[in-house]
């Protein structure tokens, strides 16, 4: 509730970005959860009652968003795609966070050689083109885990671990120098007590912002993998990037719908997540936050400056606007 008040009392667009972002994300969450109810067909369904769907049928009628080049119902693919997208995002964010956050905390707190080595390694990973890393991972995992959701999420996890690590480690390093940590040492707290009770709560506050921004990025990378044919296979789950890739081959012939709708879904969801991340940043990050204030209006002066009329002075002083 305190957080909510902080957000609400923030001035400017940040608050609205956060709210709009949350609302939009919620729409996709609803899509994802109720996909079987909302989508008229299954994601890999190409025929109903034994009758094959028409190829690239115009939107409207039986097919709200038309059908695609692989005989799929575009609307169903978009709805099922939100489930895939959210599953992959949530899995990869959780995987990356669960590994990256404690590692960063430990590395930043311990310092010394262990820290230097980890930073070095993570920086190397971080400076690696993320798509390439994901491609390599996807390429490797496909033989082992298959082309499904888990494999895609794992490929993305590798990219984002360094990001959590960096942020958490850097905040830990600066928090470690804080007087309250020294005070904790002064009362005899051991290293694990300090990490658990003094550092963790103050350090994880930076995580939600990165998590949402990473989620947005993860979605983009997932789509790129799908586009290159290295992501989730169409028969495993509906994935927007793949659908765009198939759709694009028809685009120049004026068949816009198979690629437009999944592209829109990607744009909307990434935008929504970015809004949430940036909105959070601007509402809770004290370096950026601006409080919402009531504007100043001076009450009318009933008395000349320096006047001697005491009662009038009191009146002028009286209850403000």
């Amino acid at each position: 509730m305190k957080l909510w008040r902080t957000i609400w009392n923030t001035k400017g667009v940040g608050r609205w970005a956060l709210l709009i972002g949350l609302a939009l994300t919620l729409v996709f969450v609803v899509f994802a959860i109720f996909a079987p109810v909302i989508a008229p067909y299954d994601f890999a369904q190409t025929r109903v009652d034994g009758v094959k769907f028409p190829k690239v049928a115009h939107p409207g009628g039986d097919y709200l968003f038309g059908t695609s080049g692989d005989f799929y119902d575009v609307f169903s693919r978009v709805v099922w795609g939100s489930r895939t997208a959210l599953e992959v995002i949530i899995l990869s964010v959780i995987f990356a966070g669960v590994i990256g956050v404690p590692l960063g905390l430990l590395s930043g707190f311990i310092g010394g050689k262990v820290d230097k080595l980890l930073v070095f390694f993570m920086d190397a990973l971080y400076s690696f083109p993320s798509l390439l890393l994901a491609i390599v991972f996807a390429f490797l995992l496909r033989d082992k885990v298959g082309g499904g959701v888990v494999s895609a999420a794992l490929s993305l996890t590798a990219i984002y671990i360094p990001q959590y690590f960096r942020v958490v480690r850097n905040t830990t390093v600066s928090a470690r120098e804080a007087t309250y940590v020294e005070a904790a040492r002064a009362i005899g707290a051991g290293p694990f007590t300090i990490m658990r009770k003094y550092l963790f709560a103050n350090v994880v506050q930076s995580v939600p912002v990165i998590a949402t921004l990473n989620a947005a990025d993860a979605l983009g990378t997932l789509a790129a993998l799908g586009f290159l044919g290295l992501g989730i296979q169409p028969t495993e789950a509906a994935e927007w990037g793949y659908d765009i890739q198939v759709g694009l081959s028809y685009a120049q012939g004026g068949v816009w719908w198979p690629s437009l709708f999944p592209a829109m879904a990607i744009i909307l969801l990434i935008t929504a997540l970015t809004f949430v991340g940036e909105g959070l940043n601007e509402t809770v990050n004290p370096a950026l936050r601006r409080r919402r204030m009531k504007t100043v209006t001076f009450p009318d002066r009933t008395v000349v400056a320096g006047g001697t009329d005491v009662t009038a002075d009191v009146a002028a002083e009286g209850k403000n606007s």
Partner: protein
Amino acid sequence: MSFDLVEGGGPARTASGPVIEADDLRVWYAGPTGPVKAVDGVTFSLRPGEILGLVGESGCGKSTLGRGLLGLLPDGAARDGALRFRGDDMLTLRRKEQYQLRGSQLGMIFQEPLTRLNPLMRISDHFSETLKTHEKGLSKREIEERSLEALRVMGIPPTRFKAYPHEFSGGMRQRLMIALALVLRPAFVVADEPTTALDVLVEAQIIRILHDLRETYETSLLLITHNLGIVAEACDRVAVMYAGKIVEIGPAREVFANPQHSYTRELLRSTISLSTTGLNFIDGAPPDLSDPPSGCHFHPRCPDAMAVCATRDPVDRELPAGTRVACWASDLRHGTVTLSESERAPLQKEEIALADEA
């Protein structure tokens, strides 16, 4: 460091009108629930070359007053009343005209000198930027000469002219800031806690520089500080501020020797100095400026509060010694008001808990 400043001599002689005059000036901030009345009806003026010390606890509006005089206020803040610089009302000036006055006529010296200098710019760049902005058409040679002269007066050798801010020590940085504020010889300078971040010896050096300014530059100075010692040593007059108002203003000697307002007296008593033999303190904390108490704002903490203090605003009165005070107790002592029996009765106050403090 030793300085060849002209020794001795009081304020400069050009005693024309006041340099700066505030008349019932109000500076209010926008707050979450309503306006924060950080400066709420302040009247004072400064003669050329005069140093006025502004003291009070934190959160009494000292800094806001200082910034308000220069128009350096955050979004949503507003000024009201009259503020005259050499007779011209500054509150009606357009934005561009305000910018032109700042730096050339009105200067500002800040508390933390390191963060106040652009880390990417050389000292020489800071000076040439300031000079070029206000005096178009200066040659490179002239700019350098004038900058070096300002640095020289502050005791910074010319060998350091091309250095970057981070290459200076704390005291040097503050001197740089002062030199930068004074290079255009402004008529009025606000120094906001200029020595708080510095060590005792460096603090004394800086105070001495500020004290001697009038001899070199004929600059009037508003010196904001919470250190009463600094005011006593360096200032001609002192203004005591509490909860957005100046409660007492007068010659430094007079105010320190015979404080008239209960707040001034208590503030002096609570200061730990070399002559301290027992500890005194003011109970409670300064009020929330968005909802200050009625009457005299100090009454909830005042040991001499009377019934009248809680209901009626005290009136600013000038005393024979040249002090202006807004305090009912002072009025009563000097016989300037007659108060009824019930108004004079000691105020029944709510108990202030021990830990209700700033």
